[in-house]
């Protein structure tokens, strides 16, 4: 792939550039809504918040909280009025979208989706349509926070994977780098200038951020460690004790992709919806018989952590289903810390191994 040279966007022209992008795209950008920051459609004059990571990840851009899978309508057969037919229709809306201003971790969440939703075995057409229609203009992270751990999971503050353009904040603006062919096409704007020496400044900025991160612990033992402690319910009871079993962690997560399907409507006509669902909920695995294979929050948290750091990596060549953005830690009403649980499982498994060896 031929990449253009880096460009430069002066900060005062950011609004104008987003306006320009809005001509052909729905531009979703981080904006304040009350005390939260969410990805919302950009309108001229909208204030973009880049000084902290958005409260919500950009996942709604490709995976809306609720998506219509189909519509149904009951109709009387004109030949035989006693007979009622059902008409089904389905469509896959895919507005051309630019997600502006996600940090690399937020953008990278979709890579976890891609391996499942566009695998050689299955393609989810709703997801695929939106994914293909969405471009990611990511802003490199220069301000990792206390809950961040992208570098634990094989990423970093300037990770461009999954992005189309990567912006790096430099004095007075952003160095703009195309990291995909589709990103390249966005570089034609007359608002962009050649980056020149600023590329070197950008590299310095990124090197400084990387250097400022505290060392990442080795979590390569998580996959086997979590399997090893699976039956250790004492461990899971302990680490889940403070969890209140809400869905904040899953709905804030850029990689959590589970969903529910429900029919809504009055019986004559209605919609079948796919909605974000949450493995921390009692109902998630509750069977009609009343049996529940994950009856307590300890069972459910075990699956949540196990899925991200053990089962998913086992199925997807070691890739972890976590982008390290820390939203689950920040957004949890009681500060359940997935980092702590993963590390504790590794330690617990190692201790159990030693004890077995001594027996």
């Amino acid at each position, binding site marked *: 792939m031929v990449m253009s040279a880096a460009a430069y966007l002066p900060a005062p022209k950011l609004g104008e550039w987003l306006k320009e992008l809005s001509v052909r795209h729905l531009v979703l950008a981080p904006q304040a809504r009350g005390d939260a920051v969410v990805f919302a459609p950009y309108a001229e004059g909208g204030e973009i918040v880049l000084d902290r990571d958005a409260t919500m990840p950009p996942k709604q851009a490709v995976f809306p909280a609720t998506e219509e899978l*189909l519509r149904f309508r009951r109709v009387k057969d004109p030949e035989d009025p006693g007979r009622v*037919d059902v008409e*089904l229709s389905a469509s896959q809306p895919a507005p051309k979208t630019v997600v502006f201003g996600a940090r690399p971790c937020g953008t990278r969440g979709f890579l976890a989706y891609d391996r499942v939703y566009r695998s050689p075995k*299955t393609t989810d057409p709703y997801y695929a349509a939106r994914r293909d229609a969405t471009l990611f203009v990511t802003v490199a992270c220069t301000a990792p926070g206390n809950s961040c751990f992208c570098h634990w999971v094989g990423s970093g503050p300037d990770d461009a994977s999954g992005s189309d353009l990567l912006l790096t904040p430099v004095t007075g603006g952003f160095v703009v780098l195309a990291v995909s062919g589709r990103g390249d096409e966005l570089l034609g704007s007359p608002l962009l200038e050649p980056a020149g020496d600023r590329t070197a400044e950008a590299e310095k900025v990124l090197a400084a951020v990387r250097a400022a991160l505290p060392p990442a612990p080795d979590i390569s033992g998580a996959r086997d460690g979590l399997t090893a402690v699976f039956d250790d319910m004492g461990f899971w009871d302990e680490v889940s004790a403070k969890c209140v079993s809400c869905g904040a962690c899953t709905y804030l997560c850029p990689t959590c992709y589970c969903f529910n*399907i429900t*029919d809504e409507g009055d019986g004559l006509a209605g919609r079948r919806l796919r909605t974000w*669902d949450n493995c921390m909920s009692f109902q998630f695995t509750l069977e009609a018989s009343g049996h529940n294979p994950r009856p307590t929050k300890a069972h459910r948290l075990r699956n949540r952590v196990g899925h991200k750091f053990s089962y998913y990596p086992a199925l997807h060549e070691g890739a972890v289903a976590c982008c390290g953005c820390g939203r689950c830690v920040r957004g949890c009403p009681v500060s359940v810390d997935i980092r702590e649980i993963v590390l504790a499982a590794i330690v617990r498994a190692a201790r159990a191994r030693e004890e077995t060896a001594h027996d």
Partner: protein
Amino acid sequence: MIELNPYLPEMATILETVQETPTIKTFRVRLDDPGRMQAFSFQPGQVGQLSVFGVGESTFVINSSPTRMDHLQFSVMRAGEVTTRLHGLAAGDKVGVRAPLGNHFPYESMRGKDIVFIGGGIGMAPLRTLLLFMLDNRADYGRISLLYGARSPEDMAFKTDLPEWSSRGDMTTVLTIDREAEGWEHRVGLIPNVLLEMAPSADNAVAVTCGPPIMIKFTLQALKKLGFADEQIYTTLEKRMKCGVGLCGRCNIGTKYVCVDGPVFSYAELRELPNEL
């Protein structure tokens, strides 16, 4: 309409229903599009999602045989919202069908072997498809025996099949109920105990079992006593499912998704899975 949309059901019409037991009702359905029905194929053990529009979908094994394709048969135990609404449907009503989904019984590797079917209650449904398939390919298999049990005579499903199965010379059929009942001419006793009395040989044999968890637990113990190894025992699992194609994330046991990697598992495979049934 979009091709290759795994969420989009085929419209189907109920041809006939059979009230099997007070809580189990069987539906024979045919896809409305004759071309689709003609082209439809599945393997014994695969499941389908039945839709009642406005209510939702639920997963059931296709319990007819791929060798008899004039209709698809599903047997539904009334338990939740969808199944309750399904029970209210009659011949001529429309349902949606998403099928086939999941894996199937390894009937090819079972060729030449003796087959022992052990079914309890609604657990007879997944056995029925494989049994019919084998009866229609009778020469490929060794001795076939069926042990089917229910709580009481009225809880016995597939009553229209039972006389044929009982009278066939090329299979052994044993029926049992938990407690004595008036007019009952077959065995009385719990399935695992009757199985031990039947004492099928484990040599070159495969056991296929499905039923309520407590029955499965003791049936496994009985099979062990009879010398069956985990590799010789197959069952089908049930989990709450939504998408049926491995995406929605609720039916996993560790790395395995019951909707695509199952529902059929050997006990050797189950042994390797985390204990989260």
